[in-house]
């Protein structure tokens, strides 16, 4: 046994030490292959696109592109495994909201620091890149990573702001004798909901909510950690003026008031009991939206939604803001590209990314496909062909989407609306990302506690009088105070550094 293990050990060490090849300096005359892992794509045939892309890249940066088209299910599994195992991939999609989270992996050393004073890749290979992007994006990209505070990824330019809106079934609301103006205060929804319930019968649930989103809408509480244990409450009118303090989301008075009201609405039959469970709530919510079987819902807004939702559902949908739009760390890091620390050609990868974000030809090619194959131009607008079904990457995940031409389905004013939407105020916490590593042990138990209580409380299916104290006791027992203190200490340090 021992001998075999010793043998295995030697074998493995030998192979692995061979695998660790030292990085050579980039030689522009050598053609390299850039491997790019994307998520959220639905691509079955990329040959025409890559042929055109490669011809172009060969001439521009002497490189070939190979894309790994991860699907929507790949965010949480495949990309994380590849990142963790140092796969031979140069560029990854990353962001603030999925498992391949930007700041955590920057901290773990998965990304190359792009503005590292030692080599300053950004200055050398993409000097103009951040000038085409809004400054908030550059601010949002700064993070404390394995090689100090700096830029570890390139933010994509899509919706930079974030805004919660009430999703209103307008024809039904009118039918009930109300107007959109009447939908504003969650705590005063009672009468409207009662009337809807009365008019539509027992099987009709007027409040079509995503519990966690509703909670953020009502309490104006932004995300601090991906597990939603902590919150930052901002001023709904003047977000930039908010007090910079992090709270324990479920222990505030606002939360208690909120869950009591939700419970009241639930018991009155306004909320579908399926909403308590994240597996049932998704399909149930989509069903209600598509069939118009709701009155008021929750929606994270983006320009163009109204048009798209109304088309999709076949009735007029109004999205009414519940608060001012904000730019936060989460929203600024909505879609990014990072260069893997395992990449053998980080210089060329960055050159490619710089080109991608500043060259409309390349970006349109990758986002929409080849002209004459995947789309045709009608009066300068993109009209997709059937071939498009074989090539559907996630457009917003690719990069700077403002380079794209309009499609025939787009709102003609979409880019103005887009610019206006992105002109929101940044919150004081913009750029701050909570680093959970010092309290990782506590977090594991707290996450489980939140899994146990938060969804049912947010949807009102359990009695807050009994469950909320139980929940809070469990949070306390598992060290929420320590986590909160750590978060505020980090925040103070961040603000102090920012002030300088």
């Amino acid at each position, binding site marked *: 046994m021992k001998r*075999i*293990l010793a043998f*295995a*050990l030697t*074998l*493995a*060490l030998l192979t*692995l*030490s061979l*695998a*660790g090849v030292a990085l050579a300096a980039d030689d522009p005359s050598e053609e390299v292959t850039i491997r790019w892992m994307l998520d959220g794509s639905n691509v079955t045939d990329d040959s025409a696109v890559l042929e055109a892309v490669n011809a172009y890249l060969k001439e521009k940066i002497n490189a070939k592109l190979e894309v790994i088209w991860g699907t929507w299910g790949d965010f*949480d599994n495949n990309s*994380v495994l590849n*990142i*963790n*195992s*140092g796969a031979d991939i140069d560029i990854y999609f990353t962001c603030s909201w999925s*498992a391949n*989270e930007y700041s*955590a*992996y920057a901290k*773990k*050393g*998965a990304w190359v620091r792009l503005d590292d004073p030692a080599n300053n890749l950004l200055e050398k290979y993409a000097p103009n890149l951040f000038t085409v992007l809004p400054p908030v994006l550059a601010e949002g990209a700064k993070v404390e990573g*394995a090689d100090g505070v700096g830029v570890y990824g390139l933010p994509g330019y899509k919706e930079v702001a974030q805004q919660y809106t009430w999703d209103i079934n307008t024809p039904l609301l009118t039918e009930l004798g109300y107007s959109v103006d009447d939908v504003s205060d969650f705590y005063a929804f009672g009468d409207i909901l009662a009337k809807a319930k009365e008019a539509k019968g027992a*099987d009709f649930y007027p409040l079509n909510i995503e519990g966690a989103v509703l909670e953020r809408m009502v309490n104006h509480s932004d995300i601090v950690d*991906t*597990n939603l244990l902590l919150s930052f409450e901002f001023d709904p009118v003047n977000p930039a003026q908010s007090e910079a303090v992090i709270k324990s989301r479920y222990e505030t008075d606002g939360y208690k008031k909120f869950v009591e009201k939700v419970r009241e609405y639930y018991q009155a039959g306004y909320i*579908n*009991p*399926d909403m*308590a*469970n*994240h*597996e*049932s709530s998704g399909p149930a919510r989509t069903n209600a939206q598509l069939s118009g079987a709701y009155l008021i819902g929750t929606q994270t807004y983006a320009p163009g939604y109204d048009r798209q939702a109304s088309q999709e559902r076949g009735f007029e949908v109004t999205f009414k803001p519940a608060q001012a739009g904000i730019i936060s760390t989460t929203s600024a890091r909505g879609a990014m590209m990072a260069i893997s*620390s*395992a990449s053998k050609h980080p210089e060329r990868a960055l050159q490619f990314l710089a080109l991608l974000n500043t060259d409309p030809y390349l970006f349109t090619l990758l986002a929409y496909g080849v002209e004459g194959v995947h789309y045709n131009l009608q009066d300068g607008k993109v009209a997709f062909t059937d071939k498009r079904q074989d090539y559907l990457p996630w457009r917003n995940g690719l990069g700077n989407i403002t380079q794209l031409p309009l499609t025939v389905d787009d709102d003609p004013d979409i880019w103005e609306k887009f610019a206006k939407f992105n002109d929101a105020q940044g919150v004081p916490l913009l750029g701050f990302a909570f680093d*959970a590593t010092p309290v*990782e*042990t*506590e*977090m*594991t*138990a707290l*996450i*489980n*506690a939140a*899994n*146990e*209580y*938060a*969804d*049912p409380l947010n949807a009102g*299916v*359990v009695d807050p009088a009994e469950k909320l104290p139980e929940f809070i006791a*469990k949070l306390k*027992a*598992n*060290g929420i105070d320590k986590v909160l203190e750590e978060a505020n200490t980090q925040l103070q340090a961040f603000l102090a550094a920012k002030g300088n």
Partner: protein
Amino acid sequence: MTRAPAATRPILAHNLARRKKTLLLTSMALPGALWLLLLRYLPMFGLVFAFQTDRIRPTLWDRVIKNAWTGFKNFEFLFTTSDSWRMVRNTIAYNAVWIVLGLVVSVAFAIILNEIPRKFLGKTYQTLMFFPYFISWVVVSYFVFAFLSPDKGLLTFWQRSLGQTPVDWYNTPGPWPYVLTLAYLWKNVGYSCILYLAAITGIDASQYEAAGIDGATKWQQVRFVTLPHLRNMIIILLIMSVGKIFNSDFGLFYNVPRDSGPLFSATQVVDTFVYRALAKTGNVGMSTAAGLFQNVVNFVVIMLVNTLFRKIDPETALF
């Protein structure tokens, strides 16, 4: 060689034959052994991740030598949570009950199937019993949901039509130990039944004949011919399942209750706790630590059980 004393020649030949036999038999085990070496033993290097910081490096080798050692810090999260006891209790209690129940039910079914005179019906039952094994827990969860859904479930409808207040299944932990047990048996009995059935069909028919001639009743035949014959298989499967006492069938505990929070007191097991804790952070060190800890517990338990069986009858022990 030719001058060797006559007496040693047969011994040499015997030795040679024995070596040849050993060589040939070893060659049979080699393909499997090579696979185990490459795909199971080699990755065991990863166990050091459990004792290191979770820093990502371009190669496994870099990671092993460059990452800082943290002692047992990655293990702490399993013990510091106020839910430690609950998840350990659930994990072990469900496994213990199910090992016994599963064993009794599958052996009983295998024997009954073998005794059914109408072979056609027997085969049909056997085929049908196999169906659940094809259906993933995700699909099973739809099925269970169709019965228990809070607004459209069949049981909910039924209770309403009887004028009762329907049970809010996904928020009431009480009935879930039974629901999970039923789901477990439903899915696994057909599978383990086939192992026992195959073992039974290997029994020499003459043994039954002899017993029959001696005037043994059917029950006596089962007791004195079938069961002793199944003993090896029962013990092996028993030891193997005891070796998983600290693990759980993830889909059963996660998908079937639809990851519903209020049910955690009945459905939280070590595997689901670890999954929920690390799904978002993806800490490789901590997940390796959790797996290693589970393995060590399993190892200790299986060693105890194996030793026990060896004391009773050396032939039945696994090794």
